[in-house]
């Protein structure tokens, strides 16, 4: 039965891709939606199965056998996987339904649903795998799907570039990830989770030497695995693909940011917690990368004007929070945030899709405004999502984000610094979220007359998913209420404890209240600042922009990461390829020798040819001379 969870979307993919163009066409959703909803129902069943602490581990068949290297295709369903299954399938179902409206009339409608289904399949394999190699399969397969979907409108050069970029940047991360898997095999002799994790403790102190360095094996393994997570979950320095991924249709963005793909890295690190727990260095790295990314991405989000890009940077930042949590050992908090984030982030994207749809592909918030009147459902659900992400008490985001900040605060010296970063990022989050709302939905409309005439609320097939997600954005956090409010309120923490363990340090209640109060205050300040700048004193942003020109330019240009990579990686590779390797090495040196030898022989024979004059007298002369030399040699050599 459980095998059907990933298999249903895969079958939907096959049907749509093979028969879509000729036969199914705009009926593709009749294939894909039942499949993914079916997966959802089965996932709920799986969730029920593991509710009492059971773990399901089945091997289907041996995938690869080579010498001592034996890897099965098998599935592991424990509490962590169950949560991921629910998140992935529930969000995907809503996004699929929404897409019926959003993609209506697109020439590649069938293709779109085919790829979406493949995406869900890949992600389900990723979370259900019971070994690292199958995890890697899902890992690369979601990369492929993101490539296909980001570049869905392949006629646009920007879209096909973005798709390619996503794939290749991810490959950089996978480079480390793959090596990490190899090192795990060489260290433990197996790739199956349960075996590796149960023996993890035994390799403490073991060293590996590579490129002349002596490194602790466990640290090396964790850091290599984390490389993969940095790529897939778009953390510094491999975050550059995610904002460009906005070139894909909006439901794809929602899917990538909420349910599939970017959460994979967080899931993987949480899954490998028995390994990460053993390496202090790796944990600190995870926490620092997460904390820095959280504030870094949020700062870029402050000044962007593309509605989807703002939300994209918000995702990068929120993922940073999740890694921050994982890095301080609060795995449950990280997964909890992954789960609440899925709802409000999907909602934000689908809401922005609704806006873009209404305005005929307008994405610049400077050319929006006053949409509140025309699209009330979109507006209100958007507000709920923004309040939730800002961490306003009672909403989903509040509980998970607070848990993270609290756990970080408890995490010693580094923890305190990271907590400051996280809190500033929270301020920025509230600010950019509401900057977006005020610019897009309040004030007067700043777009064209033509656009204004056509502005409309989206059809129910799109708004109903919005409403359902809004409910999630409000209520999803209620499974993790801190104990200061309710005894045994942290149900998700209890549920996940068998897999992820419990946080070690418990602080005083007063500390928790202090951290919480501070973050709420900070969020409210952020919202107020946005209100003042974009509703009250609308000339203020302009003035601030020119006063802080260098900072503004730096943020607007995203710290010039893309330009940096272009100069240091892309251009050198292309130049070296053309000039050094092909032109000089292959062309001059090797081909020089290859063509040179025959030429040399040719020129030699040209010279020697002259000897053959055809004149009998000269041949005779040479013969006589030769005979004299031989005779002379014979006589005198004695």
């Amino acid at each position, binding site marked *: 039965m459980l095998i059907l969870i990933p298999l249903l979307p895969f079958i939907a993919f096959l049907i749509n*891709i093979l028969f879509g*163009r000729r036969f199914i066409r705009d009926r593709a959703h009749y294939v894909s939606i039942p499949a993914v909803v079916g997966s959802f129902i089965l996932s709920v069943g799986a969730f029920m199965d593991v509710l009492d602490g059971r773990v399901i581990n089945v091997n289907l*068949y*041996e*995938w*690869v*056998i*080579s*010498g*001592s*290297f034996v890897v099965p295709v098998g599935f592991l369903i424990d509490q962590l996987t169950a949560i991921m299954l629910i998140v992935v399938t529930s969000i995907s179902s809503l996004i699929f339904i929404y897409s019926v409206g959003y993609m209506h009339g697109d020439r590649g409608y069938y293709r779109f649903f085919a790829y979406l289904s493949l995406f869900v399949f890949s992600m389900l394999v990723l979370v259900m795998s019971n070994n690292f*190699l199958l995890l*890697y*399969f899902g*890992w*690369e*397969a979601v990369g*492929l799907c993101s*490539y296909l979907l980001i*570049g869905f409108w*392949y*006629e*646009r*050069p920007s879209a*096909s*570039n973005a798709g*390619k970029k996503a*794939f*290749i940047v991810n*490959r*950089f991360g*996978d*480079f480390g990830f*793959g*090596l990490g898997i*190899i*090192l795990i*095999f*060489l260290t433990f002799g197996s790739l199956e989770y349960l075996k590796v994790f149960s023996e993890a403790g035994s390799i403490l102190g073991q060293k590996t030497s*590579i*490129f002349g360095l002596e490194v602790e094996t466990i640290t090396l393994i964790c850091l290599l695995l984390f490389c993969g997570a940095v790529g897939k979950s778009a953390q510094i320095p491999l975050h550059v693909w995610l904002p460009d991924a906005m070139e894909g249709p909006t439901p794809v963005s929602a899917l990538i940011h909420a349910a599939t793909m970017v959460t994979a890295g967080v899931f993987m690190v949480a899954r490998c917690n028995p390994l990460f727990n053993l390496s202090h260095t790796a944990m600190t790295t995870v926490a620092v990368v997460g904390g820095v990314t959280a504030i870094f991405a949020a700062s870029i989000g402050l000044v962007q004007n593309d509605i989807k890009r703002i939300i994209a940077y918000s995702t990068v930042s929120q993922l940073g929070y999740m890694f921050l949590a994982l890095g301080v050992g609060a795995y449950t908090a990280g997964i909890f945030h992954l789960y609440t984030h899925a709802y409000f982030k999907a909602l934000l994207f689908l809401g922005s899709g609704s806006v873009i749809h209404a305005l005929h592909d307008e994405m610049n918030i400077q050319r929006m405004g006053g949409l509140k009147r025309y699209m009330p459902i979109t507006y209100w659900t958007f507000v709920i999502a923004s309040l939730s992400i800002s961490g306003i008490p009672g909403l989903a985001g509040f509980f998970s984000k607070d848990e993270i900040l609290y756990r970080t605060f408890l995490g010693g010296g580094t923890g305190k610094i990271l907590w400051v970063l996280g809190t500033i990022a929270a301020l920025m989050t509230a600010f950019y979220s509401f900057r977006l709302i005020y610019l897009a939905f309040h004030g007067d409309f700043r777009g064209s007359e033509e656009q204004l005439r056509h502005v409309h609320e989206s059809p129910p097939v799109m708004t109903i998913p919005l409403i359902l997600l809004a409910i999630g954005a409000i209520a999803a956090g209620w499974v993790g209420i801190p104990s200061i409010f309710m005894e045994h309120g942290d149900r998700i923490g209890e549920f996940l404890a068998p897999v992820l363990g419990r946080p070690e340090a418990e602080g005083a209640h007063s500390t928790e209240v202090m951290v919480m109060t501070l973050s709420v205050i900070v969020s409210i300040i952020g919202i107020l600042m946005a209100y003042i700048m974009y509703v009250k004193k609308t000339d203020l942003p302009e003035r601030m922009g020119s006063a802080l020109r260098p900072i503004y330019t730096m943020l607007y240009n995203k710290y010039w990461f893309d330009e940096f990579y272009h100069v240091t990686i892309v251009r050198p*590779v*292309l130049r*070296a*390829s*053309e000039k050094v*390797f*092909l*032109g000089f*090495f*292959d062309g001059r040196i*090797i*081909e020089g020798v*290859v063509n040179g030898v*025959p030429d040399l022989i040719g020129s030699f024979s040209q010279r020697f040819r002259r000897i053959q004059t055809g004149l009998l007298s000269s041949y005779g002369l040479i013969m006589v001379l030769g005979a004299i030399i031989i005779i002379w040699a014979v006589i005198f050599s004695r």
Partner: protein
Amino acid sequence: MNNALMNQLGYPVLTVTVFLPLFGAILLLFIRGKEAIRWITLLVTTLTLLVAFPLLSNFNKDTHLMQFVERHEWLPSWGINYFVGIDGISILFIFLTILLSILSVLVSWRAIDTKVREFHIAMLLMETAMLGVFVSLDFFLFYVFWEAMLIPMFILIGVWGGKDRVYAAIKFFLYTLAGSVLMLVGIVVLYFKGGETLNILELSRIRYPFLLQCWLFLAFFVAFAVKVPMFPVHTWLPDAHTEAPTAGSVILAGVLIKMGAYGFLRFSIPMFPDATRFFAPVIVVLSVVAIIYGALVCFAQKDMKRLIAYSSVSHMGFVTLGIFSLNSQGLEGGILQMLNHGIVTGALFLLVGIIYERTHSRMIADYGRFATLVPWYAGIFMIFTLASIGLPGTNGFIGEFLIILGAFTSHREFGVLAAIGIILGAGYMLWLYQRVFFTHQSTVVRDNHEILDLNKREAITLLPLILFVFWIGIHPNTFLDYMHTSVEHLIRQVNITDTPGTFAEYINLIGGYR
């Protein structure tokens, strides 16, 4: 003969398989009409597959010994025998050769319209020679087949090739011939040192003095390295691949360049184990250079066929890297990757050939937005692109992963460097795909409004290859099973050591010989 099992089938199955195409070639001399010639060639190649099938079903996977053996005296005064047989390493290549031969006939159906009879005769002769190389257990026989491959391929390139076909054909011929000559010297030396026999199995059982091993290893190495081709003797390959007709490129990439790697497996490693271990680090370095160098050069290519040709240099670098890791993952990954490369690169050449028939251009810049025009073609091209960059679920992944695992085990740093090739591979292949199928509409598209999608014949040609891409990707054990015993035996052979192991000790040893 104690290294060989008897023939478990009662009849000379290998002889029939090998010489059936030759028989077909003779038959073609008496056939008139292009269509008839095509059908008969197709029939003969398909029949070869049917004849060879009992090899699969009767193959004994539990022994490393040679199977389906036939042995007859040929030139007894010289110790030369007609001696054939296969083991777990060669069996898969027999089928790769047969399959690609069938597909080559199919893809040439319309592309070849001049000198049709001669073309098909050359193809069939080629098939016999290639199969002969894989089954020979006598050096003389082996060398005859090895050299016999050169001539039909030389003709295929030189007659039915592209613009610079003559240059490419001569370059190919001289390059490989130069390599083979040294091998011939090596064989003669072996004959005298090994008790005046040319029996490959006998010769493999003798332990030669270390220094002799080294010289012989190098003599054979040159021949095989040119064939693979390894860096820096790879420059014949882009010219030959690019100028060859589609069928020629498929055979060249699919089978011919596997001969070098096969030579390492069949001769270099078992006969010169000490030299193998001595030289392995050098070859590993050359392999990694080939992987990265080949991949980097791809970025500068403007011609699709040339790009795929250079990518072969990179992929074959993985093969030699795996083989000279000298452990089971590396060797099995290397052998599997040889198959994979035959399937995937073969398919990519088929695909380029198919589109060339319609547009008469191989220049990447002439293409663009072809996904709209020929969606099925684009989809299938995508599958092979993904297989080429080693996406899990396709055959490329299994091979590359095992190779890197093997390399990492024995030469850690080089395993890491080789993995860079995977990033680069994704780069050049996806960039190629983007330029051909996405973004701007090209001049060729605008000028040719009616470019047709795949027809039935072309789809049938590609289908088996697609099947293998996923079969090997999802259930590689079907194929790995055949190799296990033979590969284990090979590892045992190379690791039986009575000479010191470390590099420094080797140096002392050489000093001692002097």
